[in-house]
């Protein structure tokens, strides 16, 4: 039950942010200050085909799964 309440709270929080925050918060990093963040070496997933392969390598051999940032897919790794 606890997990479901936590989920609902997180969803509610996101909803409040989405409804109230838009347009009111002044971006503290201006668009012209984002050259470093736009550099390809700062991409979280620069090689999706390689990252999803490695995720699969670990998922088939370890108990943990999820929260990897990819859309997921059929594993067939049993």
């Amino acid at each position, binding site marked *: 039950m606890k*997990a*479901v309440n936590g*989920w*609902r709270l*997180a*969803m*509610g929080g*996101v*909803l409040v*942010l*989405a*409804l109230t*925050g*838009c*347009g009111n*918060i*002044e*971006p*503290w*990093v201006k*668009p012209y*200050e*984002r050259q*470093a*963040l736009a*550099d390809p*070496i*700062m991409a*979280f997933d620069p*090689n*999706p*085909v*390689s990252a999803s*392969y*490695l995720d699969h*390598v*670990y998922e*088939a*051999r*370890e*108990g*943990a*799964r*999820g*929260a*990897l*940032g990819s*859309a*997921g*897919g*059929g*594993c*067939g790794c*049993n």
Partner: protein
Amino acid sequence: MKKAWGAGQWVTLALLVLAWPLASVAGVLGEDRADVLYHRYDGGGVTIHGPSVLVRKKLAEKYAISANYYMDMVTSASIDVEVSGASEYKEERDQYSFGFEYLRGKTTYNLGYTNSKENDYQAETTSFGISQDLFGDLTTITMGFSRGKDVVRRRDTVTDEIDPSFREPIDRWSYRVGVSQILTKSLIATMQLEVITDEGFLNNPYRSYRFVNPSDDRLFALDPEIYPRTRTSNAVAFNARYYLPYRAALHGGYRFFTDTWGIDASTFRLGYTHPMGPWTFEVGYRYYTQGNADFYSDLFERANQQNFMARDKELSTFVSQTLSVGATYDFLPNGWRFVKKGTLNLRYDRIEFEYEDFRDARFSLLPADDPSFRAAGAEPFYTFGANVIQAFVSVWF
């Protein structure tokens, strides 16, 4: 089984989906690209290799389609195969994935479908996701849902024929939320949460648990594993990337995992990316640790000792550590005809697995007069290392 979501959660989700377009101005879809990759995994008596091809194309800057073909060619004589008395086997897995994205203002909607087939396992997954840029694009929120349907079959390990009487389904549900946040001019961080629920035949149909042989307690006997028919897991991950002033990137992450089978796991990652002319070099380290499932035991005292019994090393207590090195060479910095850019990539990962309650049962299968013989339950713990190689070409067009 506990219901994954109640009506309240669905109403909240619906409101959220309706509210998001209010913030819309304009976003961008990812670049057009194609990747052709060869992968090879070699470790613990198992070799898996094959290609993966991904193509992604935008249409009218509002839509994007993607397709991926992935193949595993497996040759396995793993410790599990050896201990069960079966001989080396070969199999093949083909996987097709298709994706569609639609950009409306600052909201991106995506749909995905994946189909995976091997002779004794089929999996189909459909997914839906939404992503929204907020607060002057400092924040991106993502949400996703996937539904999977698998069918587990069983091969006869001697004749290699599929058993027509064995056909077990698995239903899967996955719910994801994520936030990506620009924190400073040099630092970006993400948080992701994922809840996955499975229901059905979750065993590996070829694996056995082992118990003390009633006629000789130095030996063991085997019986098919029995798993619970449901599993729900929660994972939360934090990742960050930091831009170093001399143009390099430091990146790291932590993931905590827990599930209803009693497995708790932590994953730590640290990496460094360094460009040098047309080259980009990357090094990384990954540390993973997990505790065993409640119904896991390396050696049960007797057959049918409890309701659920497993001896899968994936459910045991262990640590895995990985060292990675990678190099990317930009071979078309100025483009060529319709190609804007092209890279050649090579990556090597060395993974070491060290098990803390999974013993190497091959030692108690030796003749009792062999000097290496160890009684069941007194064998050394199993360890193995794996080499993972990826070579791929990427082009942007």
